[in-house]
């Protein structure tokens, strides 16, 4: 609008003084104003996302691409794709600026972001800011409605079973006790081909009719899950003490990773897996099997946070009593063993041992102690400090071991969960 101001001043001065030179001079700003008004602010902006739903691992890199088109006006178009907290740009940029000339604009906003924290996020919406070439018209902002849903989850650590008859595990992993026989339940497992001895009641006639052909004529039967499989309960401590470390890398995040790894491991071996979160808002998943349970567990871990609530392990076990009785479950307690929660752990595990048979003297309970101080430590001095603090906890770990429990101390920075489990192996 400054050009308009210059024009008016010069023009009226020309008129007032009857000055032809000023009149000529006033033509330039007038023409600038006229030409500026001919050109419109860029518009008709269309934003198109390639994907609508994505999933990524924690610390994984995610590629996002957005196509932008605009066919009206002349000016600058800046486009920004909203990135939630906990995301790090690793390549490209989520904010780009384009020049929209007289021809159609067709550009791409492409970037890679590192997901540092688990959760369900929304990427976007894309916001476009369209500026007039000379700023004569109001800047227009378009906000796209479309967002990209992103599920970021921990990558389960691959725990492998060592198949060596000479090895035996001191950790009470209930793999050998897995049963293929037993009472059939109502839980549908799969459709398979008929084998001699199968009951005719289980023939799936519809599926048989669908699959039958002159070349192939076999009966298909419904297979149901069998009862008598081992039950694994995972008890997760979500107290605020589990938050030792940074917001992104702390004991609790590793504990969740361990939950996912254990559940994946046991579910893959046809065990019923249940989850109970204590010292936090009540969250219990009753034991079940299959991929659906695996999905349920990972979905429920996405929203979990540490809490200041006091729900001791004993009370959590008491709440799950109905599902524990008669199941002879194997229990995994994931916590940070300290002097302050030693009593709580002893009471809780004592309560747990009531529901499962002991092997020798040892109850079927594994305590995974997360070495929080080592996770938080950075540099030589801090690591030395963490070692000193861990020494102070050793008496508590010893007390638990004395009670017959198997305590595995895990420092995620030094060892993987798989190698930790190998430590429990011994030659016969």
């Amino acid at each position, binding site marked *: 609008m*400054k*050009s308009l101001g*210059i024009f008016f001043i*010069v*023009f*009226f001065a020309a*008129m*007032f*003084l*009857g*000055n*032809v*030179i*000023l009149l*000529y*001079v006033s*033509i*330039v*700003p007038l*023409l*600038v104003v006229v*030409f*500026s*008004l001919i050109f419109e602010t860029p518009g008709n902006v269309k934003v198109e996302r390639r994907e609508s739903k994505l999933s990524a691992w924690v610390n994984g890199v995610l590629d996002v691409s957005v196509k932008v088109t605009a066919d009206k006006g*002349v*000016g*600058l178009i*800046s486009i*920004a*794709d*909203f*990135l*939630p907290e906990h*995301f790090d*740009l690793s*390549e*490209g*940029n*989520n*904010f*780009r*600026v*384009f*020049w929209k*000339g007289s021809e159609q604009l067709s550009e*791409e*906003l*492409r*970037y*890679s972001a590192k997901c540092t924290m688990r959760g369900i996020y929304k990427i976007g*919406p894309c*916001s476009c800011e369209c*500026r007039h*070439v*000379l*700023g004569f*018209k*109001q800047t227009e902002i378009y*906000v796209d*409605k479309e967002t990209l849903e992103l599920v970021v989850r921990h990558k389960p650590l691959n725990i492998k079973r060592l198949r060596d008859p000479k090895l035996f595990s001191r950790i009470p992993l209930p793999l050998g006790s897995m049963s293929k026989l037993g009472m059939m339940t109502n839980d549908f497992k799969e459709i398979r081909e008929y084998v001699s001895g199968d009951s005719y009641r289980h023939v799936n006639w519809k599926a048989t009719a669908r699959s039958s052909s002159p070349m192939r004529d076999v009966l298909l039967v419904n297979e149901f899950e069998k009862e008598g499989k081992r039950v694994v309960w995972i008890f997760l401590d979500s107290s605020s003490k589990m938050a030792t470390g940074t917001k992104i890398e702390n004991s609790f995040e590793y504990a969740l990773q361990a939950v996912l790894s254990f559940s994946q491991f046991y579910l893959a071996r046809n065990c019923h897996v249940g989850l109970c979160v204590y010292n936090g808002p009540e969250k219990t998943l009753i034991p079940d099997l299959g991929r659906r349970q695996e999905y349920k567990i990972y979905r429920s871990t996405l929203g979990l946070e540490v809490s200041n609530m006091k729900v001791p392990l004993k009370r959590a076990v008491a709440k799950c009593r109905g599902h524990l009785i008669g199941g002879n479950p194997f229990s995994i307690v994931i916590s940070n063993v300290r002097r302050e929660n030693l009593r709580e752990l002893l009471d809780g595990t004592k309560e747990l041992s009531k529901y499962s048979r002991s092997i020798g003297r040892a109850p079927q309970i594994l305590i995974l102690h997360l070495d929080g101080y080592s996770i938080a430590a950075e540099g030589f001095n801090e690591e030395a400090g963490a070692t000193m603090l861990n020494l102070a906890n050793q008496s508590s770990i010893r007390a638990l071991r004395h009670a017959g429990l198997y305590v595995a101390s895990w420092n995620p920075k030094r060892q993987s969960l798989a190698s930790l489990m190998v430590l429990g192996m011994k030659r016969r």
Partner: protein
Amino acid sequence: MEPQTPVASKFDGLGNEKKMKTELKVFDFVKPLAAFIVLPLVFYVFSKNQLFASMTQNSNAFPSLEVYEVLILFFVMAFLAVLMIFGNERILSMTFVLLGALLTPSILFFSKLDWFRVLGIQFNVDTVNANLPSYMVSAISLVLVATWIFLLYTSRIDTAKKELLRRGASEIDVEKAMNAQSSFTSKMLLGCFGIAFLIFGAASAVQMILATQAAVIPYAYLMLALIVACALIVCTVIYLRSNAGLQDRQSRNAQNSTENALR
């Protein structure tokens, strides 16, 4: 929506490493170039003016007139050049107002209405004699205004560039977009300047045709001014109203779409 402010990276928006670093940034030289063209022209017109001549003749402050002329001109020009090159939008405007003030005596010399005589003030017009033909003063005035507007927009582009970089846009993206915008703006201004020059050239021919008719009308300039001013006011009002209507429609549409989304 405020986008997350990413760190301006060494990659362009597509992840390619910077390649334009060695490219010649033409628009970095625009301001010095403008100063180099405009300042000598304005000072030439001012130095030719009778006012400047009378100032130098009456002054006894400097022992040598030639040294005084050269030194004063050199320092003032250098100072104004620095202001033009490094100043922001406001300083730039002030500099051009100052340059305009240097041109004013020469422009005023060609005024047809002598308000001093109308108001009964004794003033000898020859004290501001331009000592240059009117077409030269007009051409230099046109160059001055065109440069002013051009530098004004260049300065705005600079501000926009800094803002975008602060918000996290990649340097290559911004440089590319700004170069395109500057190129577009300069072409447009060059066009405006060319048209103005054409009008200026054609005016003398039109003047000859209309001179006989205009001579009949008393206060022809005032009549013309009145007509043009009325036309301008009407055009401005129409433009503002149409723009306000458009904005109303846009806000109404946005409101409707929000309501629909809520439903």
